């Protein structure tokens, strides 16, 4: 069956929040906190929303940190104000540029979301445009909808049964652009995401921040639709699609293997308390587990060698599910003995379960109260995989994906009666017309012409959607130097340190560097230190950005030549770097080398 890929691309806007007049950015820390629960009665959910009932089952409570860019609207303590008009106009402009039929009335809906990320228990969303398309190198990709929604609260932490969210992000306007599953492979997906990106970001109304753009990837290769939520970088789109294809192919193999042995059955899957077998164990994981719970084990009929064996990873499918309920200690026979367990202990358990050669065994450390619930959940998941229905919601994790929750049913939506239907009148249409999204080609051409940077750099800037950052940086430092920082130095530093810095911080460094008249070597060193220390002022006051004087260079070179008389002109720069972490002008170092050499 063909691979079908669809994207939902989300862009935060910097226009101010959607349903109140709070700013998009916060300036102060926590003001105070409050706590809520969300309620949804079983009968209402009915058979409709497995994802919602999964959340409901967890019966968590939610603690909200009130940020200074939030008001009673984010607290769900007053009705929404009328939607931000610039956000509406931006969504209309984007819809138009995607060739959509733009709605003549915009009607807000409530989409039920009960993971606490919306204080209301729903997300407000409206269709602005429908039925558009975007041209790509592999033919047109259809755009089903362009929506203007409110972003959710930002999750801070989860402890026990309390999830903590900050309200700073809640209510930021989010343009959501959904494609039909017309995308043919991962490279194509990246191209589509990028093309859509140009259009939105070039309006100038998209927010610049680490998580301001997020993609959901819908993937299907005949085993049901998998939705991978919250992919934040373009390159990651490629990675997760590749990973997901492999995962599904490998599951096909595993399932075929199990089926060929006779498959699984419910009656043989029973979690039994086997704690007694471990009363003298030296396994840390088991001993810790016994302090707060018990050890349960079950046969996994015919599943030996499918749990963790080369590319076969059925074990991870089970562990991901169990982990999503907050249970960590999962072990299975493909990796046993291990975890400090002896072969004897393992064998005792195997025997007690009547394990035969083809069977696998699962071990879980958990609270006895939840056994029957977890047993059902695990078997349901195995059975679903065995039927090769792999549909579910997953999330990116590095270049892999992990189980998040069952695929939600059709969204539970009802009208947002607090927000009157908005007629797209002449003024809104005119405001939209003043916003001009541009394509990739237009953006690249512009950059080369305006800033005199290389086409290659311009393409990088355009394709990484960092146009705005570049333009702002080019106002502070030489445009070509800005291009170099953006295309080479920053990506290098991000790779080396594993950190992503806030763009505002980098811009502030450039601003201060301009004020302090640093040269490019100093600026680059300061940037390097910024990644280390995370503080602009700390970076700028670091001794390492004090440049080596000609005299200091000459002394250093003399010193080097004293110990390494053979040092060549080519090697000298590296040798100086070995001896100091302060900056210097390599050209001047060469000159000094020559001079010192000559003097000898």
């Amino acid at each position, binding site marked *: 069956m063909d691979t079908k890929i669809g994207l939902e691309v989300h862009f935060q806007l910097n226009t101010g929040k959607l349903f109140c007049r709070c700013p998009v950015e916060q300036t102060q820390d926590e003001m105070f906190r409050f706590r809520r629960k969300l309620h949804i009665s079983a009968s209402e959910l009915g058979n409709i929303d497995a994802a919602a009932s999964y959340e409901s089952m967890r019966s968590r409570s939610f603690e909200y940190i009130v940020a200074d860019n939030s008001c009673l609207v984010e607290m769900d*303590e007053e009705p929404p104000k009328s939607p931000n008009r610039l956000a509406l106009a931006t969504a209309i402009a984007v819809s138009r540029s995607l060739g959509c039929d733009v709605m003549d009335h915009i009607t807000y809906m409530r989409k039920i979301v009960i993971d606490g990320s919306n204080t209301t228990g729903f997300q407000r969303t409206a269709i602005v445009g*429908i039925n558009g398309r975007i041209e790509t190198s592999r033919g047109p990709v259809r755009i089903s909808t362009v929506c203007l929604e409110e972003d959710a609260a930002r999750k801070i932490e989860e402890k026990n049964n309390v999830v903590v969210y900050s309200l700073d992000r809640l209510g930021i306007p989010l343009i959501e652009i959904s494609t039909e599953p017309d995308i043919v492979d991962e490279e194509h997906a990246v191209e589509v995401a990028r093309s859509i990106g140009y259009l939105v970001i070039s309006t100038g109304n998209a927010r610049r921040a680490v998580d301001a753009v997020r993609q959901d990837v819908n993937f299907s290769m005949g085993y049901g639709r998998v939705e991978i939520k919250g992919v934040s970088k373009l390159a990651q789109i490629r990675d997760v699609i590749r990973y997901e294809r492999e995962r599904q192919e490998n599951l096909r193999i595993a399932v075929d293997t199990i089926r060929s042995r006779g498959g699984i059955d419910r009656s043989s899957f029973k979690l039994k308390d086997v704690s007694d077998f471990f009363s003298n164990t030296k396994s840390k994981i088991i001993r810790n587990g016994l302090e707060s719970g018990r050890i349960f084990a079950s046969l996994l009929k015919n599943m030996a060698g499918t749990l963790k064996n080369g590319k076969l990873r059925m074990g991870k499918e089970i562990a991901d599910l169990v982990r999503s309920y907050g249970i960590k200690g999962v072990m299975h026979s493909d990796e046993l003995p291990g975890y400090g367990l002896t072969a004897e202990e393992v064998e005792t358990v195997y025997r007690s379960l009547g394990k035969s050669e083809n069977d696998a065994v699962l071990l879980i450390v958990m609270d006895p109260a939840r056994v029957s619930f977890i047993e059902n959940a695990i078997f349901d998941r195995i059975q679903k995989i065995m039927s090769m229905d792999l549909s579910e919601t997953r999330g990116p994790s590095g270049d892999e994906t992990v189980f998040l929750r069952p695929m939600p049913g059709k969204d539970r939506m009802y009208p947002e009666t607090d927000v009157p239907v908005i007629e797209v009148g002449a003024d809104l249409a005119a405001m939209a017309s003043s916003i001009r999204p541009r394509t990739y080609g237009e953006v690249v051409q512009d950059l080369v012409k305006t800033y005199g940077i290389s086409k290659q750099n311009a393409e990088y800037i355009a394709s990484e959607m960092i146009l705005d950052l570049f333009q702002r940086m080019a106002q502070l430092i030489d445009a070509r130097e800005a291009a170099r920082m953006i295309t080479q130095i920053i990506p290098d530093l991000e790779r080396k340190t594993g950190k992503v810095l806030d763009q505002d911080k980098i811009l502030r460094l450039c601003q201060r560097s301009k004020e302090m008249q640093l040269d490019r070597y100093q600026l680059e060193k300061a940037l390097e230190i910024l990644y280390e220390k995370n503080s602009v002022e700390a970076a700028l006051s670091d001794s390492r950005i004090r440049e080596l004087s000609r005299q200091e260079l000459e002394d250093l070179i003399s010193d080097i030549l004293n110990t390494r008389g053979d040092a060549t002109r080519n090697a000298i720069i590296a040798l100086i770097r070995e001896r100091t972490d302060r900056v210097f002008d390599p050209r001047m170092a060469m000159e000094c080398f020559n001079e010192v050499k000559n003097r000898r």
Partner: protein
Amino acid sequence: MERALLRYRNSVISGLIINEANGVITVKSSNGYNMTFDKSEVEFIERKREEYADHRKIEAIEKGQGEKRISVLATGGTIASRVDYETGAVSPVSDPELIFGGSDILTRFTVAVKPVMNEFSENLKPADWIRIGEIVARESSDSDGVVVAHGTDTMSYTSSALAFMFEAMRVPIIFVGSQRSSDRPSSDSRENMEAAINFAGTDIGEVAISMHGTTSDGRISLLRAVRSRKMHTSRRDAFESIGLPPIADYDGIVKFMGSYRKVSEEMKFSPKLDERVSLIYFHPGLNADDFENMISGKHAVVIMGTGLGHTARDLIPVIKNASANGTYVIMTSQCIYGSTGLNVYSTGRELLAAGAIEAGNMVPEVAFVKAMYLLGQYPHEQFRDLFRTNMRGEILDRDVPEETLRISR
């Protein structure tokens, strides 16, 4: 209900027609979104009628295994209503299961939900207060507690009216509302109602209001009706008992915070109200003629004066005249907090001389309801004395500073 297939520009949309009026049509499309179009912009490819069940009817229902039987009377308002997902129409909730599913309420109580009316509370009239009172009186004979689900807009008025009409009660009478409708996952109705039923299971012999104590879930406060006031348009903790801490809190269990009247052996219910009372907001520029018109034909007027309970000097002759003609003129303050004090300034002393009655620290809306009750129930010659007598806790002996009230929580 009609299902339609229609063309809008280059798109074809199928869905249920939700609304069609004023040249505009709204369709609930198959992706769940409502879409609204100018009718002139769409072309119908197909329309067909479809059966649709109407859930708006509500019937009495009783559920639960608890020993204590609590009657929940639904009168309308946010707490008793939910939105139909399909159509967006608002309909009343009747099944307690919808509200209490998952909690232990139905194992601890037997809850009988009865529809009384289905009105937004801003539409209620004094006659409705009597009607609600009569049903409460009837229910209280075979229940252990009565909960009245009510819109929040005028809940203080209705509950105060019941507080006066019930001179003695056999069971607690607890009003409950919500500021977020029951169909929202974030609704406060569930916790407010759970608390109300628990409050209704105690021995409190007062009419009181069960609403959120703070913006957080988890603590519901019980407020004396005759001191209560809705002090915020939209927050969950909109209700406050002016100058008085809550009678009790509920956070899983009922915790009494201060003294309260206990239930009596016998009920004493006196359902007579005189509707010829009005509530007038004094403001600069209110001229004597307009004022006289407002008073005319009333048996009592409650004036929300400025500061300690003042009006402009030129209204005093009107008050004197009205008072001489048997209309009771009551002075309250638009400040909301604090007491009137007509002995402090000459304006106040002139008002007293003109016959004005001062409401002291009575909440203006409660003074208004009390006037209706006294006129309906007692000989007129007792009006002045009874008005200044604390009958149901509506008058506070002491004006305790808010700082102390906060500490007392």
